[in-house]
C-alpha cells in the first residue's frame, strides 16, 4: 500500500495551508490590522505564555476564566446528574418534566443573559450561572436516558442476589450508566465553556474575554489571534480529557 496514512496527509494539508497564509499575509496588500502571519501568531502565543508580551496580567485573568469554567462545570455535573437520576427514577416526574425541559432547551439561553447581569451584577456570578444554564441540559438528558435504558433484569437480578439499595447503585446502576453520563459530561463541559466565554465577551470585566476585548479594541491583531488560540485550547483540553476518560471506561 503506497498510500500515505490519513494522519500524515492531514498534517501535510495543514502545513500547506499555514504556509499559504504566511506567504499571502507577507506579500499581499491585506492590511496587517485584519490578518497576521501564522509565524508571528505562534511567537505571540509563546510570549504570552511566558509573560513577556505586552498583554497585561495574563495569568491572573486566565486563572479567573478557569475558575469560572470549573465552578460552573462542577455545579452542572452535580446538579445535572442529580436531576437526571430524579427524572428517571419516577415515570410520573419524568413524563411531567420532559416537555418542560424540552421547551426550556429550545429557548436560546443567550437571550436571557442581560437578565442575569441585571439580577446578579457584573462579577463572576452571572458568568458562572450562565455557564450552568447553557451546560446543564445535555447532562440531564444523557443521565436520565442512561438510567432509563438499564435492563430491568439487571436490577432484579441484583435484588435476588441479596444486594441492598446502595450496593445495587454502585455495582449495577453506576457501571451501566457511566459511558452515557460521561458523554453527557463531555458535551456539557463544551457548552459550559461556550457559556462562560460568551458571558465574558458580552460583559467585559475580567478574564480571558477581557484580554481578547483589549486586544481587538487596540488593534493588537497578533495578540488577538494568539489569545483566541490560547482560549480555544481550554475547550479542546477539556474535551480530550473526557474523550480519554470515555475510552478507558468503555474498554
Amino acid at each position, binding site marked *: 500500500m503506497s*498510500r500515505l496514512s*490519513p494522519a500524515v*496527509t*492531514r498534517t501535510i*494539508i*495543514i502545513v500547506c495551508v499555514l504556509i499559504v497564509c504566511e506567504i499571502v499575509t507577507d506579500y499581499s496588500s491585506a492590511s496587517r*490590522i*485584519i490578518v497576521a502571519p501564522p509565524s508571528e501568531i505562534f511567537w505571540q502565543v509563546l510570549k504570552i505564555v511566558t509573560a513577556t508580551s505586552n498583554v497585561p496580567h495574563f495569568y491572573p485573568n486566565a486563572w479567573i476564566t478557569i475558575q469560572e469554567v470549573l465552578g460552573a462545570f462542577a455545579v452542572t455535573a452535580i446538579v445535572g446528574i442529580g436531576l437526571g437520576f430524579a427524572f428517571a*427514577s*419516577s*415515570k*410520573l*416526574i419524568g*413524563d*411531567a*418534566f420532559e*416537555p*418542560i425541559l*424540552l*421547551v426550556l432547551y*429550545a*429557548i*436560546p*439561553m*443567550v*437571550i*436571557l*443573559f*442581560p*437578565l442575569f*447581569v*441585571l*439580577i446578579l451584577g457584573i462579577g463572576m456570578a452571572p458568568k458562572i450561572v450562565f455557564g450552568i444554564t447553557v451546560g446543564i441540559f445535555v447532562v440531564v438528558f444523557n443521565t436520565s436516558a442512561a438510567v432509563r435504558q438499564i435492563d430491568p433484569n439487571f*436490577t432484579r437480578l441484583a435484588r435476588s442476589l441479596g444486594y441492598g439499595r446502595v450496593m445495587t447503585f454502585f455495582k449495577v446502576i453506576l457501571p451501566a450508566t457511566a459511558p452515557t453520563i460521561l458523554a453527557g459530561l463531555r458535551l456539557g463541559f*463544551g457548552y459550559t*465553556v*461556550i457559556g462562560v*466565554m*460568551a458571558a465574558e*465577551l*458580552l460583559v467585559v470585566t475580567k478574564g480571558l474575554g477581557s484580554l*481578547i*476585548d483589549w*486586544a*481587538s479594541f487596540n488593534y493588537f*491583531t497578533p495578540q*488577538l*489571534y494568539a489569545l*483566541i488560540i490560547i*482560549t*480555544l485550547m481550554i*475547550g*479542546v483540553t477539556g*474535551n480530550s480529557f473526557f474523550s480519554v476518560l470515555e475510552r478507558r471506561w468503555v474498554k
Partner: protein
Amino acid sequence: MNAVILAPHVHLRLTRVIQIGFVAAVLLIWHLAATLGWVDNLFLATPLATARVFISTAILSEPHLAATLSSFIVALFMGVLAAMVVGFLVNLSRYSYFVFMPILVLGVAIPKVTLLPLFVLWFGIEKTTIIIFGALSAFFPMIVNVSAASQEVKPAQITLARAMGYSRIQTYRKVIFPAMLPVLTSGLFYACNAALVGVFLVELFLARSGMGAFIRDLATTFRTPELYAAIILVSLVSVVINMSLWFLARHFSSWRT
C-alpha cells in the same frame, strides 16, 4: 423501581397537575421576588407589569424581530447548505473521511464564541457578521449529522438496489436519501438551535438592529417590564421554530422504530 402502577388516565392527569404546578410555582416565586424586594424592582418587574406591556412591546419590536428572522433564515440556509456540500465531499471515500473528520470534530469541540471578535475584525459591525457567524454556528452540528447520516446507508442496501437494476439516480432517490433523512432532520434541529443562538449572540454583542440589540438597549436603559416582555416574546418565537423542527425530526424517524 418500586413504582406504583397508575391507570393511564390518572397518570396523564397527574402529569398535567405537576406541569401546571411547576409553572405556577415559577410565576409565584417570580412575583414574590419582585414584590417582597428580594430583587430590586429596577432589575425585576412583576409578572403582571410584564403582561401589561407585552402587547405594546410586541408591536414595538416588530421591525427588530423581522431583522432577526431574516438574518436567521439566511444563516441557517447557508450553514446547512455548506455542511451538506462539505459533508458529501468528505464522505465520498473512506480515505478522505479519515483525513478530514478529525479537523471537523475539532471544529465542533472548540468554543466558537471566542472567534466572534475576529469576525467583527473581518466583516465589521454589519449584518454580514451576524449571518456568517450564524451560518458557522449551524455548520458544525449539521456536518456531524451529515456524516452520521451517510454512515446510516448500508453497502448491502446499495448492492441490492444495483442488483434490482436501479440506476445511479434511482439509487440516490429511493435508497440513499430515505436512509439519511431521519438523521439529517435531527441535524437540522440542532443546526437551527445553534443558528438562533449565534444570531442572538452577535446581535447582543454589537448589532444596531435585531431583537438582540433591542433587548440590550432595554436592559441598559432599565426599561425592565419591557425587557422581560421582549425576552418572553423572543423565547416564544424560538420555541415555536425549534419545536416545529423537533416534531419534523420525529415525524421522519417514526418509521424506523
